[in-house]
């Protein structure tokens, strides 16, 4: 027995020594290169909110950083996930197995992001999600290997839905995209509406993506609700708003509440169709001097104004690289701890902080789409009504279902 015990102790000691050796070996950049994968929808519904523009933003950050970390060059891989969780997960698996990629960024459709975080966790790498909306990514789907950066469905609901109910819009009909993101947003909105004294009188879950919304708009008209909440994104939202205006939804006294509207959506729809729409955003290119300066540089590079996601990709890449530099390693655990230790205040994030559940909380903004008369140029689209402070915007840790949070 003593012998057994001794062997056991000895082997533990050996194991500990080896792991220490490994961790010292880790205290440098693996393969002498920092390898970053950019995964996003490059050709489909969500292309314009992240897509090639997001890749350009990531490359801008790397260039501004100097192209290398502590002498180790930075290499970027990019791929189109075609909004498919399978394609996304397989691409990332390949990147990790074949190219030894250290961090995956971009990440748009929530279903893809959730699949990718599983792969990243299995292989102990890091993912920084900038495009996805589902708040479940840092709630029930949280892992120690990913960070959710720009926004999520919680502040969208908290900002927009609360403002709408406060203005008297107390009965809602929900038009929901039938997948992880839509369900998460619908859940968060329902909670906020009910807590603010309103009620959900009906709803319909439409397939993703849908091009013809006429049938759903007709159902919304028939519901008698004051507010039609759009728990969808990208081309779906654009289609729904267009159809609603064709069917005279707003003329008959109902109002639309877009819960996830990106700058490019408003740009595509035009101010005539979107004027006065309330929305919550994590960033707006024209919100202050610093934001404008970066947006001008981006405009020169890409030829369009950046969305909050594209700005967030720059900011998160920069924060990642700084953390790798400070930690002297690209070991995901160490880097993530370093990223969480430093508050984030740059042209994008105000009062930014990465919490233990992986959520990057920062100030969010309630905005309203300008009227055609108010707008002075093609991209002059929002006015910021109020700031939602970082500590109020996101789901409080006390309500978290994430295993990493000690409740």
């Amino acid at each position, binding site marked *: 027995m003593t012998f057994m015990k001794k062997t056991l102790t000895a082997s533990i000691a050996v194991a500990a020594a080896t792991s220490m050796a490994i961790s010292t070996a880790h205290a440098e950049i693996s393969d002498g290169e920092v390898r970053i994968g950019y995964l996003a929808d490059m*050709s*489909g*519904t969500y*292309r*314009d909110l992240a*897509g090639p523009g997001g890749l350009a933003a990531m490359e801008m950050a790397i260039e501004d950083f100097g192209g290398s970390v502590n002498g180790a060059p930075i290499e970027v891989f990019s791929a189109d996930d075609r909004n498919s969780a399978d394609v996304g997960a397989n691409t990332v698996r390949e990147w990790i197995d074949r190219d030894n990629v250290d961090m995956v960024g971009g990440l748009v459709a929530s279903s893809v992001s959730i699949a990718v975080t599983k792969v990243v966790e299995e292989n102990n790498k890091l993912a920084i999600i900038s495009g996805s909306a589902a708040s479940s990514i840092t709630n029930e789907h949280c892992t120690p290997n990913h960070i959710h950066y720009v926004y999520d469905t919680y502040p969208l609901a908290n900002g927009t839905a609360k403002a709408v109910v406060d203005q008297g819009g107390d009965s809602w009909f929900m038009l929901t995209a*039938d997948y992880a993101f839509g369900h998460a947003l619908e859940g968060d909105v329902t909670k906020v509406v009910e807590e603010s004294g309103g009620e959900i009188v009906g709803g*319909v*879950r*439409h*397939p993703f*993506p*849908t*091009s*013809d919304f*006429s*049938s*759903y708009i*007709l*159902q919304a*008209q*028939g519901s008698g609700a004051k507010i039609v909440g759009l728990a969808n994104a990208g*081309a779906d939202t*654009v*289609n729904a708003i*267009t159809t609603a205006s*064709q*069917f*005279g939804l707003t003329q*008959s006294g109902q109002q639309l509440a877009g819960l996830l509207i990106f700058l*490019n*959506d408003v*740009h*595509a*729809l*035009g101010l005539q*169709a979107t004027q006065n729409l309330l929305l919550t955003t994590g960033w707006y290119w024209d919100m202050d001097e610093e934001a404008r300066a970066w947006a001008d540089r981006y405009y020169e590079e890409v030829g369009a104004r950046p969305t909050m996601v594209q700005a967030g990709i720059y900011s998160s890449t920069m924060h990642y690289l700084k953390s790798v530099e400070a930690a002297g390693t690209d070991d995901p655990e160490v880097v993530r701890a370093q990223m969480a230790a430093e508050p984030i205040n740059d042209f994008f994030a105000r009062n930014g902080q990465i919490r233990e559940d992986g959520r990057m909380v920062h100030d969010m903004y309630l905005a309203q789409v300008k009227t055609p008369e108010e707008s002075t140029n093609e991209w002059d689209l929002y006015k910021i009504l109020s700031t939602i402070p970082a500590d109020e915007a996101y789901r409080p840790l006390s309500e978290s279902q994430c295993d990493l949070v000690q409740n």
Partner: protein
Amino acid sequence: MMMIFGVPLAVFMGQLTLGLVNGAFYALLSLGLAVIFGLLKIVNFAHGAQYMLGAFATLLAFQYLGINYWLALLLVPLVVGAFGMLLERYLLRRISHLDHLYGLLLTFGLALIFEGTLVNFFGVSGARYATPEVFQGGLNLGFMFLPTYRAWVLVAALAMCLFTWFMIERTRLGAYLRAGTENSQLMQAFGVNVPLLITLTYGFGVGLAAFAGVLAAPLYPVSPTMGSSLLIVVFAVVVIGGMGSILGAIMTGLAMGIIEGLTKVYYPEAANTVIFLVMILVLMFRPAGLFGKEA
């Protein structure tokens, strides 16, 4: 209030009307496919892209040349159709003696090229094309508010379907065409220029897609990917109707629009799937399609 399967009558009627509008649209698109497949045996996977080109041409012609909707309705199908004829003459004809699969691959590749090129220049968010002045507003049908433009789409699409059916099934030109595809050598012996006939037919099919594209421009955001999602549905319609059957494509298009419309009320989650479910059932019990001739 009268209820039909738990849905108020007004809502039910409204959905039926919308289903009919969408159905007319499906009919128009699947008609073009059916003409091309039925007469030329080409599986035209570029049909969705050609529909998209129709919508884009309408938008760009307005933005850069100031061409209005009515002129576009006439010109765009002709221009895109002529472009289709070039494709037939210089690409499809070269592989006409090979298996159908090659035509499918070629047209699929062309579709990807068209879409990719336009995505590169215009992105995917799409642009708006204003509804023509005369069609602003809507009709109050008592049970619903129907935007005037959708009523026009229904009328225009059905008229075009009837015209095509009449041309192919009831005129001398149509008879030549049908005979030419049945036995081209014999027809050529009679002095009919069959290759020209084939080029014209392909151009006509493509023109139909472009016509649908012009009709769609004020309805949906004009974007490079607008055709690809529709194409699969339209193929299912053609398969259900019977590959190559003109009447089958029209009737099935209308029926599928209605079935899809009703699914959107009773079980919206399945709205994108229901047509394929019907397709499987039809393939199981009537493999040649509802209007197809059993081989």
